[in-house]
């Protein structure tokens, strides 16, 4: 009978199971087709938005730009304001993992491009590498902004054999080098990208135009490194335009269609304690009279209190749940130019500052022009110009060792410089 059963068994083969619900990663990394490149790159751009709201929120709360109220998760008003940070909870792990998720998308795409048997020309390959590596540098910079001196891993292509953590300065250098190599690739990238560029990157939809975004991002990195000469060179080759629309730049777009996502940074006015972004009161009180940028915070019909914090103004940068979110825009570049000039060329620095001030309805800058005074003014302009956009205030004060300037609202509150390395890195 055993024999009989065995015969029966051997005669019936079971087909290997396959995943019915989506392509597997090896189909991309082992051989990337033209159609797959379009979808893989589209995935990268979509994935850059994953948990973007969490990242912006945690940095903005750390920089006391606003308070994030969420009645079901009071860690927003506890840990992030007391500075007692957990290395295994959402504010540490979620933005970190999400950005590395995009890095993985890019690494698989680049691996697939190398292994591709499709008829990509060298120009197309260069354009693709340049584009993908620029985005990868952006994502790594986003992680580094959170981790600061804790450093980050750069080589993460093999999940079983991850590269070492490198320190802040070394990581910034590597990110800058990645952007430089990408810039070279982009300049050899011909006239068109072999994939679709979404609307938010409309001004940057050819290799040549995208090079301007690459240079703008490199300028931000160089500013973080204090290489002001390099910043000015890069800005010159970027989309910076002193006379142009301050909002010109690259954006993430959103929609409510299908697998698309809504703008995670939008809440309606007068939202309840369940979910609200309440402007820090100092944003209103510290503002110069007449500064129209104060309008980014809108007076509520009633104040909102949570965890002994009371505010009267909602953060209202985005007017709908499909409004685009800036990746980088002209206003930041102009202020980077001001910063890059603030020691070597105060006149140029003030000129740049005034572009922003006048646009905000303020008179031109009349204060002192010592480097220290200009830094104070530039930090103040960055505070109002980039309010609630990318957590800039916390990074900026950290860069200039001025986190002590931040207001503390309750006894026991404190500031912090960086997020812990996630526990699961098993560092």
């Amino acid at each position, binding site marked *: *009978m055993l024999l009989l*059963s065995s015969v029966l*068994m051997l005669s*019936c*083969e*079971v087909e*290997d*199971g396959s*995943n*019915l*619900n989506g*392509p*597997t*990663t090896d189909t*991309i990394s082992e051989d990337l087709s033209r159609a797959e490149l379009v979808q893989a790159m*589209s*995935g*990268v*751009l*979509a*994935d850059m938005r*994953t948990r973007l709201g969490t990242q912006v929120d945690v940095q903005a709360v750390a920089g006391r730009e606003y308070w994030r109220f969420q*009645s*079901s998760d009071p860690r927003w008003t506890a*840990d992030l304001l007391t500075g*007692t940070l*957990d290395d295994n*909870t*959402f504010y540490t*792990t979620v933005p970190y*993992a999400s950005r*590395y*998720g*995009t*890095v*993985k*998308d890019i*690494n*698989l795409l680049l691996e697939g491009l190398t292994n591709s048997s499709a008829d990509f020309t060298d120009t197309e390959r260069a354009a693709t590498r340049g584009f993908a590596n620029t985005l990868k540098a952006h994502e790594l910079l986003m992680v580094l902004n959170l981790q600061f001196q804790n450093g*980050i891993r750069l080589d993460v292509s093999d*999940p079983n054999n*991850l590269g070492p953590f490198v320190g802040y300065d070394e990581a910034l250098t590597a990110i800058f080098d990645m952007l430089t190599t990408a810039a070279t690739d982009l300049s050899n990238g011909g006239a068109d990208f072999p994939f*679709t560029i*979404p609307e*938010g990157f409309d001004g940057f939809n050819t290799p040549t135009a995208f090079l301007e975004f690459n240079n703008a991002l490199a300028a931000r990195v160089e500013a973080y490194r204090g290489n002001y000469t390099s910043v000015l060179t890069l800005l010159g080759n970027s989309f910076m335009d002193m006379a142009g629309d301050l909002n010109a730049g690259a954006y993430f777009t959103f*929609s*409510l*269609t*299908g*697998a698309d996502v809504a703008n995670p940074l*939008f*809440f*309606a006015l007068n*939202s*309840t304690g369940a*979910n609200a972004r309440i402007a820090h009161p100092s944003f209103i009180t510290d503002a110069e009279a007449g500064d129209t940028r104060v309008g980014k915070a809108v007076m509520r019909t009633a*104040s909102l*209190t949570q965890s002994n914090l009371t505010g009267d103004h909602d953060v209202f940068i985005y007017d709908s749940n499909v409004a685009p979110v800036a990746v980088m825009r002209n206003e930041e570049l102009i202020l980077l130019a001001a910063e890059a000039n603030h020691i070597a060329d105060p006149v140029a620095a003030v000129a740049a500052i005034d572009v922003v001030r006048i646009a905000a309805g303020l008179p031109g800058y009349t204060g002192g022009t010592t480097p220290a005074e200009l830094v104070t003014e530039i930090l103040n302009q960055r505070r109002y110009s980039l309010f609630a956009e990318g957590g800039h205030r916390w990074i900026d004060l950290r860069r200039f060792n001025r986190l002590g300037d931040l207001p503390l609202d309750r006894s026991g509150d404190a500031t912090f410089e960086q997020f812990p390395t996630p526990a*699961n*890195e098993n560092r």
Partner: protein
Amino acid sequence: MKKQTHFSRMRVLLLLLFFPVVLLAQETITGRVVIQGSGEPAPFVNIVEEGTNNGTATDIDGNFSITVNSLPTTLVVSALGFTEKSVPVQTAGDISIEIAESSEALEEVVVTGLATSVKRSNAANAVASVSSEELVGLTPPQTLDGALAGKFAGAQITRSSGAPGGGISVRLRGVTSVNGNAQPLYIVDGVYVNNNSIAAAGLNAVSGAASGGNASNQDNPSNRIADINPDDIESVEILKGASAAAIYGARAAAGVVIITTKKGKRGQTKISFNQDFGFNTLLNSLGQRNFTEARAEALGAGNGALFAAARDNGTLIDWEDEIYGEQGFISNTSVNISGGSDNTLFYAAFSNNEEDGIVDNTGYDRKSIRFNLDHEFMDKRAKLSISSNYIDSVSDRGFFNNDNTGTTIGVALSSTPPWAQLFPDANGNYPDNPFGSSNPLQTRDLITNREDVNRFIVGASLDYKVFENDKSNLKLILRGGVDYYELITTAIFPEILQFQKPSNGGLNGVTALGTTENKDANYSAFLVHNYTTDKDLNFRTQAGVTKLTFSRNTVRNITSDLVASQTNVDQGANVSVTQFRQEQEDQGFFVQEELNYQDKIIGTLGIRGDKSSNNGDANELFYYPKASAAVNFHNFDFWNVPYVSRFKIRAAYGEAGNFAPNGALFTAYTNSLIDGNVGIVVPVTLGDPDISPERQKELEVGFDASFLENRIGLEFSYYNKSVDDLILQANAEPSSGFTTRFENAGNLENRGVEIALNATIFQEDNFDWSSNLIFFKNTSEVTRLDVEPFSLGGFGEGLGTFRIEEGRSVTQIVGNDANGNLVVLGDAEPDFQMTWSNNLRYKDFTLSFLWHWKQGGDNVNLTSLLTDFGGTSPDFDDFDFDPAVANGDFRVAAFFAGNATPFVEDASYLRLREVGLYYNIPSSVLDKAFAGHVSNVKVGFSGNNLINIFDYNSYDPEVSNFGSNGLSSGVEVTPFPSSKRYLFHLAVGF
């Protein structure tokens, strides 16, 4: 009920013998055989003239006629389930014979092979059985799995939601898998029955519950075993681990629950009608915070005055009572018709079960139709059995549990104080709730969260006796079964809800329609060979092959920004579609050899081989062996221990498997969309194409003893069950681009004891009392872990979470203490559980009750924290933790300090799980009143959970935010509260 049992035994053994009557034509004896006690006719009873081959059988009404050679003579009357009786007959003509039930023949059988069973007294495992009487006899259960709670040793059964209609986790002998399936396999009349919990409703789109760190399902869907009508069940056998279940192979690691439904009985067609009416109410009311103006003012400026005004106007509202205070109406109706002729038996049943929840607009309605048919043919060498069941169940589940948007009813209530004004105006317009993102009254009244199941379960088996002689026989058994269902989930959140209004940041209405089509099929063929030697040594050999196929397809459409008041998924601006498919095929074979030496020594050896498309290599066979032995000392001649009527020692070892969960083998991209361009993004979990199934190895040893002529029985079992190659969805270094990864990375072990003591305390004509005491205890340990310890199944170390760590209990709950150190704060595993069931009969009254004591076992209770944040905790102003700091402030402060200590609570309980009091109207009364048209009438009252004693600071310590699987039960976040039930019954038999 006993009456029915012996009829079924009669059917099982089929010893009816028909011998040609030698007509020497002298004397004819006629008469009627009736059953002692009830006086009911006994059909198909054998009547043989002693010492001859001359015999006959009674007809359907118990009548017989036999012609004998000469008088006086003796008739031997026998039937399965009855004591054989010799009746001396002096004269021809009419006689009446009473036969009595045999206690020996009533002996239970338990399943030990895919095609065979053995007498319980010969079994080498402590197989748990639950009879129809135990299952539904005390009080009618909502669902089958819920009805098992407290009725056998070794199970931890947890309801995840108080909403009627299921959502129950059954854990047999501890945790058997961390990330894989941990729910037992259910087999109904040979059909593998699907017990998925499919969260197809898409509530996450509204609640955002899974948008935080925890991606697991918090929708609390019902589980599909709830579809089986408990009234249709004749018996349930529970194989608790691999030592008993190895023969089920690759799917058996979490245990197997074998369900047999009722069959017809030979004799007159019987009609039985049952009707229950009743209601349920909130099991445990928490009450309200004792507000003062100062306390109200602390919730926000101006609230003190609002509170005072409402207090003075008498308009303070008890929101707990408003939402959870309903009495849910219960009505169960069932009619069944059963009967049979000599070779055909049938059972047909219709039932309708309706139960409303304690929250308006929640409830469960199940309609079930069953038709079972057994037919013997070819001189009773062949038997065809068909069981078929159609079920239509509808479950309205409400909107509860965790969320991140403040929209579930529970979360909204947590911040709604008694002076909130949430009632609609005369035109039905609900005000926005100023104390939260949603108006819970409006949510309750206007949303839909419905599961609608249409299901067919059909099984057939053909037994054919290939040959038979004195020493041996060979049987061929062919079986097939299909379980097909369509599950439609409907979630409707109209645009007028507070949290759907665009002015409040809402999506202007969401409607979601999920359709799941599931088809599981099983086919098998077995050969069973019996051979008995001259020395009464019996060999039973069986071998067979099985094939199982599983197919699931879930399509979910979610539409937002709805056209006013429309609910079709095309009536909105934004439509998204997701689809999930799963196909699996398993094939296996098994061989088993059983030896039985005069019921003294019984041994079994067997092996099962399984392959599956869900393994890395689909054609690799995985083997699961088993071996067991039982020795019945009392059957040996040397046994003469006084008072000890039975003594058996037994040992069993077996192995069983558990498949890798879906997706463990693959790393599949998910879809994205930006600016209308479709894209692919990496998933959060890295698969492992080489993953192998988990393997459970269980050794069970024990003894069974009976004392005082079997009036006292004692069963003792010890088991050690280990799981090797544990499939863990362990944390990955997030810089790899993945947050978790599947790998075979550990072993765990469960050890426990189970003791059952039953006693017939009184057995008099007018008074019976039998009692059953069960004690069981399990401890577990992670014995190997190849990855870093990781936390799962909670909300992080600051709130209390499970943690897989080598050398520790699998179900430990850890968290940060007041000093920020990660410490063990509890364990979900109870210290022990005890149940005590009793059946008392006085004349025509019966009283039965079941107490259940769970000692120890901790929960993570986050409900009180949420009500603390909302300032509404009933114990907010008490001082249980610190004499100087009120509870509410203490818990909030602990939360802010990342201290999880106050959130891990002892979830011990003692509850009167079931109680029933019934009165059988005596047949003499019935005969007078109905002239014999009504054979029995029973009336009674019963209840569930009528007495509950616990110190746990919420509605019920039996709770689970994360549904039924894995480790996750026992985490509480504003659940649908449990209820207690009161029922009145009427049963009439015709």
